[in-house]
């Protein structure tokens, strides 16, 4: 194992390798498309067309991206602290309860701009509390956070089914969902933003939670790189020993990080509930919590990477829906495959191409790259 590793320039590390990984993921996805007898290039064309072809499509793309920004940020914050929060799905789902309670209580008495802040707080609080339990169990009892957050996804799903079927469903209704919200709990659309550019948006559900997501992306950047708390999270994430040396409490930092992560996942509930469906219904999260994993891995846990990654997945979701019209063999589930491939190549096989690229760099310009000793540690 004493192969000298050439140190790569920054642009290769943060640009080239992720792009190669992504390209391989899409290449394999293209093979799947070919396997079902369609032309992958044509599919890509329809996909992009479907995502950006007109104002409505763009609005839908950004609507989906909103969900993924929230969940991607949630996963990324935990990653920075060395934690794998696989429970974003459940945290977002259960946070729907918080949103529902606020909306049902205030939609008849308050205007949307008063209900919205309350709903933000409620969704964040419920999401954070749902993440608190696994965090506490890790910090105090050493329970594996991956397993507990998976279990909490299922528990959240059962709890929400129970609540929607037996508690929140209005009397006399058959559908397992809350009553429709009044305008006091309906978020304004953002269509005008696109219409300013002369596009027609019609009824696309893009709403101001998109702006909230962008604000959160900025705040996460501030948190991670500009606050003492973020500094402590990163220290613990890179080296728990250094954190101990620096006087950072392990239990405190785990619990706070997971609560922040849960709160971000929880806020995802605002977008579909208050911005689109105007009620809480079964399975409104539709896997966005898991997409967050792919988004965070692809965006290298940096908000500047997460937002474009979330938009890319928004493209896949929206474009995929259009694709299903034109190519009946391909449904929106194609996204799930791509998502899996991105997680595989940008995550688990992250370093597969690194040695080859390093060798390439070393042979092309041996003078420009320092040769360092790598001892099984990715510094």
């Amino acid at each position: 194992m004493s192969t000298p590793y050439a140190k790569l320039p920054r642009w290769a590390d943060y640009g080239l390798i992720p792009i190669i990984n992504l390209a391989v993921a899409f290449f394999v996805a293209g093979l799947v498309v070919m396997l079902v007898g369609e032309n992958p290039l044509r599919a890509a064309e329809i996909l992009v067309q479907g995502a950006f072809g007109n104002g409505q499509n763009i609005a839908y793309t950004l609507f989906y991206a909103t969900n993924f920004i929230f969940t991607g940020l949630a996963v990324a914050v935990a990653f920075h602290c060395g934690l794998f929060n696989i429970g974003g799905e459940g945290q977002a789902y259960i946070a729907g309860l918080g949103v529902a309670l606020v909306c049902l209580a205030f939609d008849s008495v308050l205007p949307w701009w008063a209900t919205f802040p309350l709903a933000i707080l409620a969704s964040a609080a419920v999401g954070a509390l749902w993440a608190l339990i696994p965090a506490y169990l890790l910090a105090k009892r050493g329970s594996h956070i991956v397993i507990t957050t998976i279990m909490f996804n299922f528990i959240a799903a059962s709890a929400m089914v129970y609540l929607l079927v037996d508690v929140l469903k209005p009397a006399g209704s058959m559908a397992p969902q809350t009553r429709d919200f009044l305008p006091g709990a309906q978020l304004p659309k953002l269509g005008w933003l696109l219409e300013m550019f002369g596009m027609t948006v019609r009824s696309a559900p893009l709403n101001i939670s998109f702006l909230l997501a962008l604000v959160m992306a900025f705040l996460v950047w501030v948190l991670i790189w500009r606050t003492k708390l973020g500094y402590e999270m990163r220290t613990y994430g890179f080296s728990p020993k250094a954190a101990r040396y620096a006087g950072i409490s392990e239990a405190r930092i785990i619990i706070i990080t997971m609560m922040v992560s849960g709160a971000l996942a929880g806020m995802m509930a605002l977008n579909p509930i208050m911005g689109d469906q105007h009620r809480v219904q079964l399975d409104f999260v539709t896997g966005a919590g898991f997409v967050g994993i792919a988004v965070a891995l692809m965006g290298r846990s940096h908000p500047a990477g997460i937002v474009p990654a979330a938009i890319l997945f928004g493209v896949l979701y929206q474009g995929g829906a259009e694709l299903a019209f034109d190519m009946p063999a391909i449904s929106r589930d194609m996204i799930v495959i791509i998502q899996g491939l991105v997680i595989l190549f940008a995550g688990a096989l992250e370093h597969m191409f690194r040695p080859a690229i390093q060798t390439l760099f070393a042979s092309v310009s041996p003078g420009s790259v320092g040769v360092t000793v790598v001892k099984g540690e990715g510094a």
Partner: protein
Amino acid sequence: MELIDVLVQLVGATIRVSVPLLLACLAGLFSERAGIFDIGLEGKMLAGAFAGASAAAVTGSAWIGLAAAILTAVCFGLVHGFASITHRGNQIVSGVAINFIAAGSTIILGQAWFQQGGRTPSLSGDARFQAITLPGADAVHDVPVIGPIYAEVISGHSLLVYVAFLMVPFTWWVLFRTRFGLRLRAVGENPAAVDTAGISVTWLRYRAVLCTGVLTGIAGAYLSVAQNAGFVKDMTAGKGFIALAALIFAKWKPVPAMFACLLFGFLEAASIRFQGMPWPFIGKVPVQLMQALPYILTVILLAGFIGKAIPPRAGGVPYVKER
């Protein structure tokens, strides 16, 4: 209905529901005992179920279906091995990826090949593993108590049910009575000890991953070619994760794994059987609580409140030769 009939039905249902859990749980046992965490059991089972149903539908042979299921799940297992053994990637991330790839590709391919909304064609006759009536089952059926138990609980399952339960002693035997099992357990505890004893850690772990693939393949085939007459999208419905929970619950041991799976299977069977019915002393229990119970119990176990589940010591950590 008589109490005995209710019980017999409940136990019969418990067995049928437990089988995929049990096979997946034993599959996970091989992998995790060798130090490879596998949260991709769900995906491998799903891929196996789809491949099994597809092959059985096309060829009309349940056996070819089974073989296809095993082959497919093994391939997915090898992907996990490639990422986590060869490239020392994050085993959790790899498992998540496999679950998604399986979930998406089964639907896409299913739709492309069969155009039935992600379903595979309904299987019948030889294309499906039929219930086996054990000798004498019909004869003793009317004997009180014993008759129904023999006829409904012990007899009348498909071949794979018996395979699943025979896998329990077999897994135990492999693990504790063979050279392979000894090495497998060792590599999950201390891979350096295996390495210095002159055994290849990589090859050993790959073999463990292969075993996991085979068993998840059988589990998938059971779902789509035996228990049901075809593949429906997302038909594993979290069973892979319940199996994972059962594995933790059983503290990575084969016989307790069987009891954990039967317990979780019973919870599911009972929640279906008694849906909406009041329980003695407790009153009406929400069916969702019953469904969530395996997960809640596992969390309580992980928190160390009922015993302590200590995973294999080298679990989740790629082996790097130390300097």
